[in-house]
């Protein structure tokens, strides 16, 4: 590639040492009809970290990613990626980032190898080098054997891996993964997680990933933003977020009709910090689970309320989400996001 240029404004400036990989201020997207998908979010992603955006479907995760990857124009707000301005330096940003979107966007008629070669060439990489990288990446995602088969014959997991490979042809500094394991079986999910960890650890790629799987966020993300209804409701490392809740989480299953009554019965117990009601019963945030549970049983027994099951656990991200939004993330799909509104009280 030559080092001369006549193009205007596309000679990128180098990123300075302490600059964030991504800086977002007041980013907002409103769709026609007044639907606000992303409502003035601020976030920063540090160079070299895996940053998770966790939230239910419809929380605005994909819209955020589409804006940051230049596929959708923000209604308001600013962002810089690798020091490049989202509004002015779109081409430089596209050369700086790799993107694997929710629907593995692949041409079914082409072979895996062809897709990678085309993608590499569109990033200005010459044919010889494009071929070399395609082989190298097919190896990386364990698709060498299927490289010359058409993509329409690939399984879901293979498509995701190819999509990931295609996001890496130009060796991006920042990788955006939108719901990377949605619809994958547990084994393929594990494989993909390992790839992401490896890219981050060995090659220092900054990763931004969206997910509605708690386990995925917990496992992969160095830091997290929890989003709901277009807003960031909580942000921090998974450990810190869980520690913020502290203590234990006691879950009690009761009949929906007896929920209010149970709430009253348990609300007076010592060591209780907070009660949340959801579809299956009550979630109690308490100081110490082991001493608290016997009191729960006694109190409910005294009030003649039958108990389905009681469990004690350390707080998970689901409890973080519950505490921040008033509804649970786990199983939210099945209930199509209908959270118990009284819980927020």
């Amino acid at each position, binding site marked *: 590639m030559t*080092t001369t240029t006549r193009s205007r404004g596309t000679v990128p400036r180098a990123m300075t040492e302490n600059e964030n990989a991504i800086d977002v201020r007041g980013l907002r997207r409103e769709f026609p009809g007044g639907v606000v998908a992303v409502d003035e979010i601020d976030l920063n992603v540090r160079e070299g970290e895996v940053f998770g955006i966790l939230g239910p479907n419809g929380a605005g995760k994909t819209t955020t990613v589409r804006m940051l990857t230049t596929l959708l*124009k923000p209604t308001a707000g600013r962002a810089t990626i690798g020091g490049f301005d989202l509004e002015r330096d779109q*081409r430089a940003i596209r050369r700086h980032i790799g993107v694997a979107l929710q629907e593995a966007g692949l041409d079914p*008629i082409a072979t895996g190898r*062809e897709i990678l070669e085309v993608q590499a060439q*569109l990033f*200005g990489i010459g044919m010889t080098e494009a071929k070399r990288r395609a082989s190298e990446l097919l190896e990386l995602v364990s698709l060498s054997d299927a490289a010359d088969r058409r993509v329409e014959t690939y399984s879901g997991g293979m498509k995701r891996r190819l999509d990931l490979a295609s996001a890496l042809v130009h060796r991006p500094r920042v990788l955006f993964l939108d719901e990377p394991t949605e619809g994958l079986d547990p084994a393929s999910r594990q494989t993909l997680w390992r790839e992401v960890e490896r890219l981050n650890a060995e090659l220092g790629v900054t990763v931004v990933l969206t997910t509605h799987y708690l386990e995925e966020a917990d496992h992969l993300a160095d830091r997290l933003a929890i989003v709901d209804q277009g807003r960031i409701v909580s942000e921090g490392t998974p450990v810190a977020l869980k520690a913020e809740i502290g203590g234990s989480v006691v879950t009690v299953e009761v009949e929906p009709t007896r929920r209010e009554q149970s709430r009253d019965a348990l609300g007076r117990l010592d060591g209780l910090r907070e009660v949340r009601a959801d579809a299956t019963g009550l979630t109690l945030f308490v100081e110490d689970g082991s001493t608290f549970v016997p009191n729960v049983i006694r109190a409910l027994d005294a009030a003649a309320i039958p108990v389905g099951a009681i469990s004690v656990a350390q707080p998970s991200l689901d409890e973080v989400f519950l505490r921040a939004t008033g509804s649970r993330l786990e199983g939210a799909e099945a209930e199509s996001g209908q959270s118990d509104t009284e819980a927020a009280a």
Partner: protein
Amino acid sequence: MTAQAIAPEIVPWNSTRESLRAGWVLGVRELRTSIRTPAYLVPNLVVPIFFFFMMVGALEEFAVGFGIDNWKAFQLPVAIMFAAQGGSAGLNMVADIESGYLDKLLVTPASRISILLGAMAADLMRVTAQATIVLLVGAAVGVHFETGIAGALVLIVLSGLFGLSYSGFGFAMALKTGNAQSTQTVQFLFLPLLFLSTLFAPREALAGWLSTAATFNPLTYLLAGMRSLSMSGWDASDLGGAFLAVAILGTASISLALLAFRGRVR
């Protein structure tokens, strides 16, 4: 891959050169797709050839009444034009939108116009091939070309450019709606447009509203140019009119397609 540091491979970018290259890479990819899905091509060839033989077989007697002595040479350009409008007409673009592949192209630094023109350049090759086959069928059944092989070549170029211009409307619709049904209406509109031109008779023989419609129909001028090549010999004004009609059609359709493309990212 070894744990090499990823160099931020941001080298200067020569827009013009990279746009041309991207257009080429994507054009090759489109052609590969159409070669692998030959079922697409069959109707695009069978229908115009059927149309030609039907017109020739059924209406030759009438034509004498219009004073057209070389009816086959009068109808062959219609069949060629018919074959030329049958490109992907944006349906490949719809497939790329639906599969999400277009998004994958849009996150590369390739310019929007090279993505569009790459897809359209493949269409140009495809329709040129189709038009050539129809032309050869015509030659095989004895259509005499007044302007000889040179004229036939000009006719192919003209019909290829027309196919490109016409498919621009299909691309515009594809990019605007992302929907196959809407995109196909562009193809269906070709027939009424054809009937409102000088399909059956020369312009002088048309009367009433049909004559008015034909006056404003670019296909009229295109057919006049094409027919001058097959029937009467080199005619600068007929040919000029045909190329101008195609240029106007192409400017309009490609502008619409680019506008629709911009609209997608909003």
